[in-house]
């Protein structure tokens, strides 16, 4: 028995994990794919009706709500990840210098990304509250007129971007900081000998050498930003008037709000393809840089 396990360990060790993935991931995705060709409202008496590509044609061709949601998904992802990258690099530079209490400060910066997003969403909900929230008080100190934040169609999505920036800038900073520490010191010494200014060193040496690290951070962050659900659902549920309805939220509403399982599955397959497409695209960009 022991011998047999020993000989086949290559397959036995990953087997439970692979079976689990097949059962809980591969099978559901296949099922969702099949459902995306049907029309079904989860009714027990009316079985799913095969409609071929009708859901896709409908969604891509005639559903403005889908296109708006797709636009918001990209708006949210690009705005949040771009801001997080710039601020994250800046934060990493600030932390890459010795000062008293540095380790404690570094640890505290971890908290936004581990804190339960729904709970944090509730805190921001209170801070964004137009009449009693801290945000309007804070901007009032600088003479800025009160905003309606999440309550206005124009302000809701940018407000959510701000929360995402708060949550995830430290993540980029953390990755960049780890990259900074592992950089070789020779180019910096050479630059110092040549009398380069600190800014020149940053733009010409530090940033180019960090590029692979930064791109990996951007890829990881983009995947998660596209899929953001918790804070949006907790704070606005896609409102007001759909102003924060991203693809993830729309898919959720189609499935669990309207029980249009076919249309929801169609949306999820398209969403899945978009996320995979972004991953492949960013990965290409990374390889292009490495070459």
């Amino acid at each position, binding site marked *: 028995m022991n011998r047999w*396990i*020993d000989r086949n*360990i*290559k397959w*036995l*060790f*990953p087997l*439970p*994990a*692979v079976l689990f*993935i097949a059962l*809980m*991931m591969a099978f*559901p995705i296949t099922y*969702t794919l099949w459902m995306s060709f049907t029309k079904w409202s989860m009714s027990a008496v009316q079985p799913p009706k095969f409609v071929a590509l009708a859901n896709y044609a409908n969604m891509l061709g005639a559903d403005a709500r889908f296109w708006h949601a797709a636009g918001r998904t990209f708006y949210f992802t690009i705005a949040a990840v771009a801001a997080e990258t710039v601020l994250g690099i*800046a934060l990493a*530079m600030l*932390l*890459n210098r010795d*000062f008293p209490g540095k380790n404690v*400060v570094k*640890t505290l910066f*971890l*908290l*936004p990304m*581990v*804190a*339960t*997003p729904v*709970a944090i969403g*509730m*805190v*921001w909900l*209170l801070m964004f509250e137009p009449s*009693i929230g801290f945000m309007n008080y804070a901007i009032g100190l600088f003479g800025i007129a009160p905003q309606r934040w999440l309550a206005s169609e124009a302000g809701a999505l940018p407000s959510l971007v701000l929360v995402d920036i*708060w949550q995830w*800038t*430290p*993540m980029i900073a953390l*990755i960049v900081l*780890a990259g900074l520490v592992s950089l070789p*010191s020779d180019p*910096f*010494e050479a630059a110092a000998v040549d009398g380069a200014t*600190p*800014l020149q060193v*940053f733009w010409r040496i530090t940033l180019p050498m960090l590029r692979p*690290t930064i791109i990996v951070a951007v890829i*990881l962050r983009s*995947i998660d930003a596209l899929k953001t*659900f*918790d804070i949006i*659902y*907790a704070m606005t549920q896609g409102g007001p008037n759909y102003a924060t309805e991203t693809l993830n939220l729309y*898919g959720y509403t189609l499935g*669990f709000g309207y029980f249009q*399982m076919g249309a929801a*599955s169609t949306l*999820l397959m398209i969403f899945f393809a978009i996320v*995979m497409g972004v991953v492949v695209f960013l990965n290409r960009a990374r390889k292009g840089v490495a070459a």
Partner: protein
Amino acid sequence: MSRRRRTHPLNPLLHFAALGVAFVFFMFPFAWMLLSSFKTQAQIMSMPPQGLFKGSLKNYVEVFQGQEFGWFIINSFIVAASATLAGLLLGLPAAYSIARYKQAGIGFAILVARIVPGITFLIPWFILFTRLHMVDTLPALVLAHMLVTMPFIVWVMVPFFEAIPGDLIEAARVDGCTEQYAFARIVLPISGPGIITGSILAFVFSWNNFMFAVILTGAHTKTLPVAIFNFISYSEINWGSMMAAAVIITLPVLVLTLVAQKYIVRGLTAGAVKG
């Protein structure tokens, strides 16, 4: 290191000012949550906000009286602990095998779970679990959360196992030791740091998970993120109690992070930076 410090583009004063601004921005919501959790509704409503006020624990008492909050804490704990343990049980051998036998295909299949949007599984799961009468049971939720914990553990452990020198295992093999014995007696005991890293964050991700729980739980199995979300279904939000609930939910995670800071950093940057 000292050289790089000298070439830093900011002068020390600006550096501290910038750090200070960043620090206040990132810490403020936590401070506000904590302060508000001790305030009455009237104190929260007052403008300008009160920095100094007579605090009370009334909100905390209310949280535990109003809902079955104690149960929600227990539910969250059971689900996160079970999903993490099961994730280790499946993930450790798989990660080891992927690392030792270069099974990139299997590794990729498992890691796809970190890319696919979660609701893509949620609809079939919901249909399946409804048929099996498993909605509103803890096992269904644990199974769902395992799709978060197990791939994450694999993601952390593959590079960790890859770094273990092959000679170590070969030496044991020469001594007549079986692969499984070498894994259990040699590899696992020296993998403590990796296992801690993977488990802590897997636990945190499961504890924080909202999307799966909001669909798959019901009155009996509600976890904390779902419970706090239900606060906003009231006509007027009871902000104080909501903030007290937020403190109760986030506190374990925050304390865990402060205590196990080193492991958290390693886990969060896993896959992004080598070494």
